[in-house]
């Protein structure tokens, strides 16, 4: 029974991320795109998938990756998320510099661009904070509120960005993945009682929070 549950969780997670990637790989749009543009697009899709994994890891919902291992994985996948975003933005910059510059300056005609750019800065900000929080001597509560506020921007930003884009992703699988990203983000926020005063996350030792 337990094994069935574990297998189910991992199977659903794998499908939620791999099916959209697989369907995007069959998109007719790819025929008209150069390799750098294609890589940039898929980096964005992978980033969306990683944003689904992140809350699940930190809340310990993924079998075999709870507690310390979950937090370590969350830390490294956060780094991977930065890499995918850099590839996404860098690849689009090479493909069409003026369009990318417009997006970064918030002067783009496309409604989804600002959401993506805000999510990008929030991802970079979390990464910088995570790397320097001990140096800065951030208190756990300060760190938590900063990270979670940025996490809200990341989740909302990346979902709206993805949903409004007309690109290689197939609509149903994209919608399902975005719905799961939102659902996972909201559930973890609620379960960890992130914004409740004086709260410590469920099942986590407050002392362990310092790392």
């Amino acid at each position, binding site marked *: 029974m337990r094994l069935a549950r574990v297998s189910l969780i991992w199977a659903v997670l794998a499908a939620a991320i791999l099916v959209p990637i697989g369907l995007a790989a069959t998109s007719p*749009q790819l*025929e*008209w795109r*150069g390799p750098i543009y294609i890589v940039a697009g898929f980096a964005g899709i992978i980033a969306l998938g990683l944003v689904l994994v992140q809350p699940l890891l930190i809340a310990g919902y993924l079998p075999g990756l709870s507690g310390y291992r979950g937090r370590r994985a969350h830390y490294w996948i956060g780094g991977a998320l930065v890499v995918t975003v850099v590839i996404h933005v860098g690849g*689009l910059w090479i*493909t*069409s510099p*003026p*369009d990318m510059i*417009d997006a970064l300056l918030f*002067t*783009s*005609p*496309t*409604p*989804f*661009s600002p959401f993506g750019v805000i999510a990008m800065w929030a991802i970079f900000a979390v990464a910088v904070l995570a790397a320097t929080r001990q140096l800065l001597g951030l208190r756990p509560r300060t760190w938590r509120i900063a990270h979670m506020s940025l996490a809200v921007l990341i989740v909302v930003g990346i*979902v*709206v960005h993805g*949903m*409004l*884009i*007309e*690109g290689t992703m197939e609509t149903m699988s994209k*919608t*399902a993945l*975005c*719905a*799961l990203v*939102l*659902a996972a983000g909201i559930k973890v926020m609620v379960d960890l009682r992130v914004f409740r005063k004086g709260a410590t996350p469920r099942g986590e030792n407050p002392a362990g929070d310092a790392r």
Partner: protein
Amino acid sequence: MTTIIFNRRNLLAAGGTALAAGISGLLLPARAAGLSPTSSMSGGSNNYQKGAAIVDRIGKGGFWMSGTVRRAGDGAPLAKQRIQIWAHTTEGQEHEPQSHGATLTDKDGKFRLEMPQIIPIFGQPHGHLAYDSGEFQTVFLRPVMRSARDKSLEAHFVLQPA
């Protein structure tokens, strides 16, 4: 959960429509005092290459870009005006020379140029048009297709003297 997503999207679409309606509302009173000039659209000049040649057709064709060119104020049609057109199509990216071409307006101020099928680039299926010939002020347009399957797209210019 799916419903929530669609609601969010609809909400954004509704917001955009309201914004567009608001903007056209602002523009309408100007029309009463004479036809106001078209402003360049944001991103309109992206990947512009000055001096695209006048052609009968861009590439193998199959898609029609059309529109009108009129004079600000009285709205008189402007003949023999050069309109430059480029887009990401099935035959090339926006910055590639084979994706660019130009055409002239007829005596009614209308233009029409066949070009390869436009496909979505940077998340939206769109074309680019420029009036950049000096006699009137330069205008760059960036119309978006209602659907990526559309076989035509329109853009209209109202020009004011340079």
